[in-house]
């Protein structure tokens, strides 16, 4: 070793600066992208203003739009993902509803979690073996309603946990497009152990996911799947043991063999997920919602058709009593109106898929003088929506 190497070794043994954790590097990376985006947006604005000025000067509109197209690079899906995304309906029918598969839980939609209406929200972790099997079922089910790209992040579940080393992938970086709903998946930790005995954190839950997670999953089980604020699954719906010792290719191949343990577990779970997802479809339903397996799963879910199409006391607005009705009748009407608005708020879904409802409030106001036939002293209820379509934020109060 040279003298220089020997002297500098002291600097390596006793570092001149502490080593920042990986989280700091991610934060730094995000900030760099934000700076770049700001600069790009500024330049784009200048280009648009320039183009607009030129158009004005020339006195005619340009013959072809000069919009900048965003280039997206999609990673080609590996054969096993394609196989999972194309499990034939006949196979799903043949698998049916195996008794060892857990049925998703129907939940009473809550106003507090309204932001996940119309959203399939998945909270998992890369180390988690239960997430490994649930991802496969989700892939099979969601592929019936849309398509995935960029599923190239393969992972093995933790080697030190139960069912070690199950072959799966991470939803980080994956893209899903569907005409029916949006898919919002996150993986909260990697499969790399950290010094605290846990795993390296990856992505934090959004505020909407956090609210639903806290409300419907008090034991904080992973994975947590919230299908439109109407159905949830906690943990895996089938035993991950069927994946033990199998490669991604083995699993992808087995999915189309109805009698295989893999198909029984994953396709069986997918049948229930498909039935739950069908309740989220508004308008024309995809063919998968009309199959016998989906119909049977739907019955098992206790859903029937879409929850929004069910008629109950809370889905019909109570008729307003005559002005001279006794105060007890008005009080009952006010209570029914409150329940109606709470149910309507909890089920409300933005009519435009480009819009997101982030908050709905149902608030009461005691009338101090008669209003539109409602006497003074009656609590009148109103609903306020907060959300956004694109970059703009709109707030409307409706009655």
């Amino acid at each position: 070793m040279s003298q220089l190497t020997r002297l500098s070794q002291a600097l390596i043994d006793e570092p001149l600066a502490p080593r920042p954790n990986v989280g700091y590097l991610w934060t730094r990376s995000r900030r760099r992208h934000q700076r770049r985006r700001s600069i790009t947006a500024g330049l784009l604005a200048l280009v648009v203003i320039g183009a607009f000025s030129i158009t004005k000067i020339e006195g005619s509109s340009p013959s072809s739009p000069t919009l900048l197209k965003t280039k997206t690079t999609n990673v080609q899906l590996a054969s096993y993902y394609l196989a999972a995304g194309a499990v034939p309906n006949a196979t799903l029918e043949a698998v049916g509803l195996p008794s060892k598969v857990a049925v998703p839980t129907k939940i009473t939609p809550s106003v507090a979690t309204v932001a996940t209406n119309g959203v399939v929200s998945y909270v998992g972790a890369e180390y988690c073996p239960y997430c490994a099997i649930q991802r496969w079922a989700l892939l099979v089910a969601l592929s019936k309603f849309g398509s995935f790209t960029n599923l190239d992040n393969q992972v093995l579940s933790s080697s030190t946990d139960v069912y070690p080393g199950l072959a799966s992938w991470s939803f980080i970086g994956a893209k899903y497009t569907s005409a029916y709903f949006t898919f919002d998946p996150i993986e909260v930790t990697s499969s790399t152990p950290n010094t605290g005995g846990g795993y390296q954190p990856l992505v934090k839950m959004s505020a909407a996911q956090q609210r639903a997670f806290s409300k419907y999953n008090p034991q904080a089980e992973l994975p947590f799947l919230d299908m439109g604020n109407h159905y949830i699954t906690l943990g895996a719906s089938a035993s991950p043991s069927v994946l033990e010792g199998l490669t991604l290719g083995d699993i992808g191949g087995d999915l189309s063999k109805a009698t295989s343990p893999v198909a029984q577990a994953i396709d069986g779970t997918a049948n229930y997920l498909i039935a739950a997802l069908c309740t989220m479809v508004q308008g024309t339903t995809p063919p998968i919602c009309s199959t016998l397996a989906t119909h049977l799963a739907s019955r098992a879910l206790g859903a029937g058709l879409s929850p929004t199409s069910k008629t109950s006391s809370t889905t019909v607005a109570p008729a307003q009593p005559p002005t001279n009705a006794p105060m007890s009748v008005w009080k009952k009407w006010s209570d029914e109106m409150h329940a109606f608005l709470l149910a309507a708020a909890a089920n409300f879904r933005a009519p435009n898929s480009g819009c997101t409802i982030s908050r709905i409030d149902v608030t009461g106001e005691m009338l101090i003088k008669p209003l539109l036939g409602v006497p003074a002293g009656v609590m009148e209820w109103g609903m306020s929506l907060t959300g956004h379509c694109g970059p703009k934020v709109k707030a409307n109060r409706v009655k």
Partner: protein
Amino acid sequence: MDIVSGQRIGLVQKGELVFVESFDAWYSREHDRMIATLVLSTGDIELAVEGVDEACSRALERWKRISAMESPTGWVYRVAINHAHRVARRKSMEQRVFRKQASMPDLPAPAGELWELVASLSERQRQVVMLRHVAEMTENEIGEVLGISRGTVSSTLHDAHQRLGRLLNDDSEL
């Protein structure tokens, strides 16, 4: 994120699952050495930390591609050195515009002693010496990092050794 287990990472390359070192493992091993190399190349701890942090952050983002390179560490050094240069240029411009006094490097021992030894070398000679003796890179790797030929690395190293040898009055040590 392709972490497969612990220190390894599984990536699909040309349809095959290959295993490379995970970012965390590489980062834990190389960080302190990179800081030492850049401190002794620039004489400025702040600049070195900024360069290494920026380069590691970029490497983390692109780890899938970088881990498959022949020398991931070489790539990170190149980015770190370039970034440190950019920051130094910006600092120098600010000093000119705002008429600030440039601060002299003030390194704690033993970095200070080493800096005194290598400060008289040219910047290129310092970089080559540090990459060779602190970062422990081969001449080929140094050439890749600095964008120069192996022959230039070799002659620069030779010149630097002679100069340092004279300073240390002990040619044989280097």
